[in-house]
């Protein structure tokens, strides 16, 4: 029997626990599976302005959940994310049906642009997006720095002044940013996520650089606290200033696990990140389509 067109149910019909479960099942054979629990799914929806009423779960002929796709929404821009089809329920254009439904959903809300990221090497998804009209814009790096990483020690250059940024200074710096962030690191994402800190360094020769980042501390066991640095926004005029900025950051927060997502792969900052112990986790391809 030929499978029929998948039925689509708005994702807000489901709780976060079930959404996470469907997403995890859809990603079991993904290149880099990144499973989530209900708490992480809820955070993801909140941080990245995912509209669950405009996102979908697909059902197969037996009314079993077969896939998931979510739509983020900012201004007149839509963002496709968390797309996945459960491996044993693939093969009846579930991924395409879900993606087209998100695009229709975006158009219906007045979106003029839709963007997404696909992990490098995920050829079926990349082919689907090209077929639907998406074009590549750039490659993005996802990086990690383990708590034990070296490279951030040593005295900073003589004459460097470090000034912590308070909440209003952080907000002011974010308003002045000149980079072209991916959806995950847009200012709205950072403000939604909260727990932001930042500082500025000034060199005696007049050069300066600043960084805003997210630092969270979560007790895991009575003995262990998980600390994580993420969501970097940095403004630096040259690689040496970036190096000093990152050294200062990791001297302020030594032995803290760090994840930086979606830095442009051609960024001049990458070498400075490597000098202080960052390694590439994987790469994404950013794509967009005018609607």
């Amino acid at each position, binding site marked *: 029997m030929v499978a029929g067109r998948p039925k689509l149910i708005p994702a807000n019909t489901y709780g976060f626990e079930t959404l996470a479960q469907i997403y995890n099942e859809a990603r079991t054979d993904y290149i880099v*599976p990144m499973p989530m629990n209900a708490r992480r799914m809820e955070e993801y929806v909140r941080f990245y302005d995912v509209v669950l009423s405009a996102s979908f779960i697909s059902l197969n002929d037996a009314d079993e959940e077969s896939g998931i796709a979510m739509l983020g929404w900012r201004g007149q821009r839509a963002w496709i994310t968390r797309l996945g089809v459960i491996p044993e329920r693939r093969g009846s254009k579930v991924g395409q049906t879900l993606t087209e439904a998100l695009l229709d959903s975006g158009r219906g809300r007045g979106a003029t642009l839709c963007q997404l990221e696909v992990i490098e090497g995920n050829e079926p998804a990349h082919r689907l997006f090209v077929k639907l009209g998406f074009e590549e814009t750039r490659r993005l790096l996802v990086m*990690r720095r383990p708590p034990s990483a070296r490279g951030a020690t040593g005295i900073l250059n003589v004459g460097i002044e470090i000034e912590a940024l308070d909440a209003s200074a952080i907000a002011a710096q974010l308003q002045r940013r000149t980079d072209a962030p991916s959806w995950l690191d847009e200012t709205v994402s950072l403000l939604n996520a909260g727990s932001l800190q930042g500082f500025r360094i000034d060199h005696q020769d007049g050069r300066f650089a600043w960084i805003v980042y997210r630092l969270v501390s979560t007790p895991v066991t009575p003995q*262990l606290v*998980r600390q994580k640095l993420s969501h970097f926004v940095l403004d630096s005029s040259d690689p040496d200033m970036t190096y000093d900025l990152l050294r200062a950051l990791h001297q302020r927060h030594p032995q803290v*696990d760090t994840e930086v997502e979606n830095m442009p792969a051609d960024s001049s900052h990458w070498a400075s990140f490597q000098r202080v112990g960052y*390694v590439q986790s994987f790469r994404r391809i950013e794509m967009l389509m005018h609607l």
Partner: protein
Amino acid sequence: MSIIVVIEDDPNSARLASRLLERAGHQVVTAMDGETGLNAVSEHSPDLVLVDLGLPDFDGQTVIGLLHEQPTPRPMSILAFTAWPEETAQVMAEAYGCDGLISKPINTRTFADQVAVYLPKDDTTSMGSGSSQISL
């Protein structure tokens, strides 16, 4: 007999790993997420921990970082256990100070021997090798 904690969210993979290691004579504790796994390590003081790099609460790298901070009464090996592309997994396992890496899917014939390489010598009854095992 060694004590091994398997931190793995895929129930099929966890069950298979557990069965193969128990058949090789080890005591196995499984945990489906990072927090449960860290508590299991604290409670059982294992000789070895297998950590899936993709976990639903904290990712595997975070768990490995926390395992290094956790006081243990005796040396404990940490192995990354993952279906990630081997090159990526190897870079990540090395950066996070893992003793080794075992790629998924599990090779049922060699898995217990692959793990045994990283156990205290008294417990190593056979030394095998498999294409998906990398010492770091």
